[in-house]
């Protein structure tokens, strides 16, 4: 479904690429976690896939194929068709993507109608249905709310509901739970897993929370300073990591009843 | 020297406007050298002459050389407006910081006075104050200062309210800094850049306000060489001798633009995000 072929991403005139020779193949319904610390290039990578590199960033080498189509070559019009229906993205705070002075309903309806011809009423019903699937009870009430009236966890669910409206084949999640409380984080993780089971959506999760990454992933890619330092199935990476960096990274994660310092 | 070069390279716009500002100030400082005539010497025989090689900007109705008067006018206008900006900036910032930091009754009193000032049209209030005090350059400065300090007080207060919640202020308190130390070492340095930028941009508008008061007869008194007053004197001859208004007007225009551009480019220099 997705085939990233040895891409490198460069920002402006900086000779050092932010991502170097990154390759990844994904099958439908697969979940790949990309973990790494700040400056590892993981966010740059996911933005390159979505064609929304910030500022002066561009793909200097390699190619990204999504169902056989080359993504870097797409025009603005083709991207608009693809985003939302083929590839969707959710962010650390999806609420920040919503216009704070407009009700969620009107933004959701507008979003649906730009991708699919339907009446406002149908779009509204579709939105409510999606919200309720995301375990947001009283979808009607949410649609009539302003973003700031919702909690962080609820906004994140709205973001996921919107991203999943057209059942995209690929969902890109950039630190989807990092701004949330632990109990809410667990709920969101569980829901993303349910999405994969019900819609067969492939997910790329980028996160610094290695516990979340490990729990969700079929495969894990470990990045450091723009390079892949380790990649493999979850069991390979967790039980027998090949790189020393991976090992020290895994060792740093505090665990319940694990290493105690005092 | 190298640091100066690096600075110039990084802030070309600021350098240009700073040099222009220096030019304007130099005109004021070296007025006696630049002037071709005594600005106060009236030669009635030469009254209202158009610009010529003898009198570059022409002469006014008293036969005084207009070029020399415009040059000398820079002295009056610049000293007055610089003094004015210094007064309102210092007083306003001080009151604003006190109001923002201590809150309570002090805040209420300072801010209600400032509200009262804002509820009048500034110029009308300044006219009233100048009218009561009597027409003179000093009184014009006082009158405008009385109505203009509120802007700085509000700005400083809002900055203080934002900064006082920052962690580094909490950290300063936890580490046992005295209140005066916090105000002086932590608050002021972080309030000042914004205040200075506002001040630099304000010099231009203060020149205008002083000129306006003088134009209306509440500022400089004849025969002082002051641009606003000169405009007023030329008003009666607008059609017959337009140069009487054009050249002082041009002087005001150029000075105001130069100081405004300086203020704008100062914003880029002082922006802490660049560091």
């Amino acid at each position, binding site marked *: 479904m997705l085939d990233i072929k040895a891409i490198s991403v460069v920002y402006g005139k900086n000779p050092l690429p932010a991502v170097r020779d990154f390759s990844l193949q994904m099958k439908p319904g697969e979940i790949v976690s990309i973990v790494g610390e700040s400056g590892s290039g993981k966010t740059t990578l996911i933005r390159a896939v979505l064609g929304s590199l910030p500022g002066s960033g561009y793909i200097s080498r390699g190619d990204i194929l999504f169902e056989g189509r080359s993504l870097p070559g797409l025009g603005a019009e083709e991207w608009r068709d693809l985003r939302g229906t083929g590839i969707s993205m959710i962010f650390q705070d999806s609420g920040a993507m919503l216009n704070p002075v407009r009700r969620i309903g009107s933004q959701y309806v507008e979003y649906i109608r730009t991708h699919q011809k339907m009446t406002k009423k149908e779009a509204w019903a579709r939105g409510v249905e999606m919200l309720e699937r995301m375990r947001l009870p009283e979808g009607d009430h949410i649609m009539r709310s302003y973003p700031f009236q919702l909690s962080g966890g609820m906004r994140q669910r709205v973001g996921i509901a919107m991203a999943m409206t057209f059942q995209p084949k690929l969902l890109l999640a950039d630190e989807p739970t990092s701004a949330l409380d632990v109990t809410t*984080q667990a709920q969101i993780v569980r829901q993303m897993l349910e999405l994969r089971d019900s819609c067969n959506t492939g997910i790329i999760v980028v996160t610094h929370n*290695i516990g979340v990454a490990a729990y969700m992933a079929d495969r894990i890619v470990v990045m450091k300073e723009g390079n892949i330092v380790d990649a493999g199935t979850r069991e390979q990476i967790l039980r027998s990591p090949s790189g020393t960096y991976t090992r020290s990274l895994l060792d740093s*994660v505090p665990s319940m009843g694990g290493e105690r*310092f005092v | 020297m190298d640091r100066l070069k690096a600075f110039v390279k990084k802030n070309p716009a600021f350098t240009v406007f700073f040099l222009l500002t220096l030019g304007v100030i130099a005109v004021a400082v070296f007025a006696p050298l630049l002037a071709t005539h005594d600005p106060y010497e009236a030669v009635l025989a030469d009254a209202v002459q158009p610009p010529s090689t003898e009198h570059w900007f022409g002469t006014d109705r008293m036969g005084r050389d207009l070029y020399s008067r415009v040059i000398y006018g820079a002295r009056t206008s610049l000293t007055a407006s610089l003094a004015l900006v210094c007064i309102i900036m210092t007083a306003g910032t001080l009151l604003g910081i006190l109001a923002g930091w201590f809150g309570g009754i002090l805040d209420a009193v300072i801010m209600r006075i400032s509200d009262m000032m804002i509820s009048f049209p500034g110029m009308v209030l300044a006219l009233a104050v100048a009218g009561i005090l009597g027409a003179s350059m000093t009184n014009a400065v006082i009158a405008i200062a009385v109505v203009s300090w509120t802007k700085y007080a509000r700005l400083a207060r809002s900055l203080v309210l934002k900064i006082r919640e920052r962690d580094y202020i909490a*950290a300063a308190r936890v*580490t046992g800094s005295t209140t005066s130390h916090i105000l002086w070492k932590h608050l002021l340095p972080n309030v000042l850049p914004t205040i200075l930028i506002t001040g630099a941009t304000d010099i231009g508008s203060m020149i205008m306000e002083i000129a306006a008061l003088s134009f209306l007869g509440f500022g400089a008194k004849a025969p002082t060489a002051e641009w606003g007053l000169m405009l007023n004197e030329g008003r009666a001859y607008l059609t017959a001798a337009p140069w009487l208004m054009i050249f002082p007007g041009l002087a005001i225009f150029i000075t105001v633009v130069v100081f405004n551009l300086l203020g704008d480019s100062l914003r880029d220099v002082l922006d*802490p995000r660049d560091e």
Partner: protein
Amino acid sequence: MSENHELILEAKHITRRYPAPNGRTLTACQDVSLNFYRGQTLGIVGESGCGKSTFMRMVVSLEQPDEGEFLFHGRDITKLKGEELRQHRQKIQMVFQDPAEAFSPRMRVMDIICEPLLNFKRIRKSEKEAVARRYLEMVELPGDFALRYPHSMSGGQRQRVGIARALVLEPELIVYDEATSALDVSVQKTIIELLVKLQKEKNISYGFICHDMALVQSLSHQVAVMYLGHIMELLPGDKVADGCVHPYTKAMAEAVFDLHMDFGKPIESIESEAPSPLDVPPGCPFQSRCPKCMDICRKEKPVLKTIAQGHQAACHLYDLK
């Protein structure tokens, strides 16, 4: 275990309320009693808005409680004012969450580290650089950093400078407010190791707030679990993983994503989210999300009861025992 250690600071029945719009009140801390012992760490864990930061801000006298008192070696510090309060501040220091926010911009590292000492005239200005170098080395940074500005340093390095600043006055208690949450995990681990080493060397008491339960239990002697301003459970750090009894503590522990967990097992999580602290229901604050909620929980607020040595819980389930 804590009984053998000298009691430094005792928080007794601390309550803090804030006025909210429409005449309502937000109770950030409700009847919180906790003890800090010499050389020991008290960890407070809870979700955002649970009142843990408010409590610690009162510990360092940045705010004052509406009710209750803090006894520092038996002396009520909530009554201190002016110079007396300033002198007392030497004993309790704090490290902030965001190392980029905690320093005044335009100050050099040595000015930052030595400011507390200069505030109390403990050193002369000429000694600044030497003192700063000594403390930088103590937090495992090169002494040359004394001349640098914090914005040219990494997050972990800045946080070490923050720790150095908290150490210079040789306080008896240091409060850490999510001090490692903004850092990468590998950096977090090295900072935690440093903190523990310093604590052992200097026998300082720590207060450590964090939302990461796995981290808190790894370095705390006692852990307090807070929810909507209330202490739900207080237990020894080594019992958190498998000895916690309160349904909320259990829910938090279940929600930790652990590398050693059974990935095949579906993640357990309580439903919904915490109610607004403005709408804390009567009875148990956790009733709306508790899987074991009973009738009594809606009527009567449970109080903390000792269920084992050093282990207290506020839950009606343990009334009967």
